[in-house]
Structures are given as C-alpha cells and as structure tokens.
C-alpha cells in the first residue's frame, strides 16, 4: 500500500514537471516529447489506481497516436515558437 502511494506521488509530481516544461519549451518538437512524458506518468498513475484497461488505451492513444499527430502537425508549420 505504502509503495503504491509513493509510486503514485512520484508519478504525479513527475507529470507536473513534464507539463511545466511542455508549456514553457520554445522548441515545439521538444514540447511534444515532454507532453508524451507527461502521458507516460499519467499511465503509471492509472495503473497504480488498478485500471489496466484505461492505462493501456491511454498509452496507445496519448503516447503513440497523439505524439505522432503533433509531429505531423509541427512538420506543417514552424518548429520554433517566437
């Protein structure tokens, strides 16, 4: 139980750090990678809350599809934010 709570808290704070870097990063490609990192820590959160189905879907969609979608969209615009 205590291990689960520690993993939960660490993943939660890690996700906050990733969100902060994703928002402040000027290189959009790096920001997409940080966003994927945030999704990974959310997937860990969902798994500690005993929801493996949601964790699996979340990983496939938000790390795989969503990041790929962002990269495709960035390739159509400029890479660096002003």
């Amino acid at each position, binding site marked *: 139980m205590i291990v689960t709570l520690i993993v939960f808290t660490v993943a939660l704070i890690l996700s906050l750090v990733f969100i902060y870097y994703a928002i402040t990063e000027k290189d959009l490609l790096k920001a997409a990678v940080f966003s994927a990192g945030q999704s990974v820590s959310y997937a860990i959160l969902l798994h500690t809350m005993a929801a493996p189905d949601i964790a699996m879907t979340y990983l496939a969609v938000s790390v795989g599809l969503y990041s790929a979608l962002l990269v*495709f969209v960035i390739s159509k615009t400029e890479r660096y934010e002003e």
Partner: protein
Amino acid sequence: MSRRTIGLIVLLVGVVSIALTTFIVFNPEAPKSVRELGKYYIANTTRDVSSPEAVTAIVWDYRGLDTIYETVVLYMAIVGGLAISTTTRKVSLKTRTGLTSIARTGTRIIVLLIATIAFAIALHGHLTPGGGFPGGSALAITVMLIVPVYTLQSLLDQGVSSTRLIAVRGLALTALGLVAILPVIKGLEAVTNLKFYPSHVAGMLISGSLWLYNLFEFLAVASGFAAVALYLSIPEEVYREEIKGGE
C-alpha cells in the same frame, strides 16, 4: 534561485497541501450505491456474459449500444478529415527519401513486435485487459512509424492509400453493425449477446459476441487511424499546388 522557481515551488506545495487537506477533511469515498454496482459486475459478469473481463463485458454487452454509437462518431470524424484533405490528382513524392538502413532494420523489428502485441491485445480482449480500441490504436502506430522511416511513397506503392483504408474501416463497421443487429432476426433485442451467440467455439471461450466486436473494432480503429496518418503526412506543397490548379 530565481523568483520564478520559488513561485513554482510555493505553488506546488500549496496545491499538494490543499489536496491532502481536502482528502483528510471530506474523506471522499465512492457512494455506497456505486460500490454495490461494482460488486454486482464483479460477481455476475461470468454468468451474464461468460467473460472474466468485467470492463470488456460492460463496454460491449451491458452498454454495448453506447460503444457502437461511439465507433460511428469516430468514423464520421475521420471521414470528415479525409473530405477536407483529399486531393484530386495522384500524389507522387519521388523526391522524398527515407532514413538510413540502420533505422529501417530497427523499425522492421519494432513494427513486427508492435503488430504482434496489438493482435494479442485485441484478440484476448475478452480474457485480459485490453480490447479492440487499444489494439487498433497500437496497430495504427506501426503505420505512423513506417511513414517517416520508409517514406509515404513506399506505402502508396504497396497499394495502401487512405481511401482504401477508409473502405476497410467501412466494411469493418458494417460487420460490427451486423453482429449487433443479427439477433433481431430471431426476435431478440439488438446487441443481444449470449442468447444468440455461443459462448464457446471449438472448446475455446469467445464470450459470445465480445470476441467478434473486439475483432471488428480492432480492424476499424486500426484502419481509421492509419488513414488519418496517411492523409496528414501528405506534404503541404501538394495542397498548395492543388489550390493553385483549381483557380
């Protein structure tokens, strides 16, 4: 330490302490009626749906009609995207080259692994966590890997185009609808499961229609997202030429 970092740390400590105080003071627990509902599903899924996986049982049996409508909504979104980004002329991208042979070999192995896991997730969806949607999304990722590494042209040469993938998705969705509607012929309700479909085939547990739904949803989601990846990876210049040509 800059003022910004200190501000962020104060914010973090504040948010965490507010969350802890709320948890201790209000003690948020699920209402008793919801817990009873959860217990009902855990106790009765094996009897009602003959599937040990309660989540798949809820998604495709207890509230199966919802999920079918969800699939239709996603289909309409993907078709709408294709309608906007369609091109009249044949896309030819001979100038683009892929990555080096190291990346190609690595991608080949990874694509094989992802595809295997995707099939396992989808086809065991009625036994273990997973199902058609996660499996299909995982399979669509292989296409998104192949496009940058092997170029879009190599896929188009193989006859994989977004129009064809949309056709596959349409067929899979039709099959899914048929699985849902077939019980009506025998006078049962639509989306009936065990009264119409057998729970075992050749000694293997397929949990009635759950396995069929998972299979068709897998095909539909995989081909739909792959189609999105293909029409998004057509470069902007093609569209610009298209607009110029139209004027």
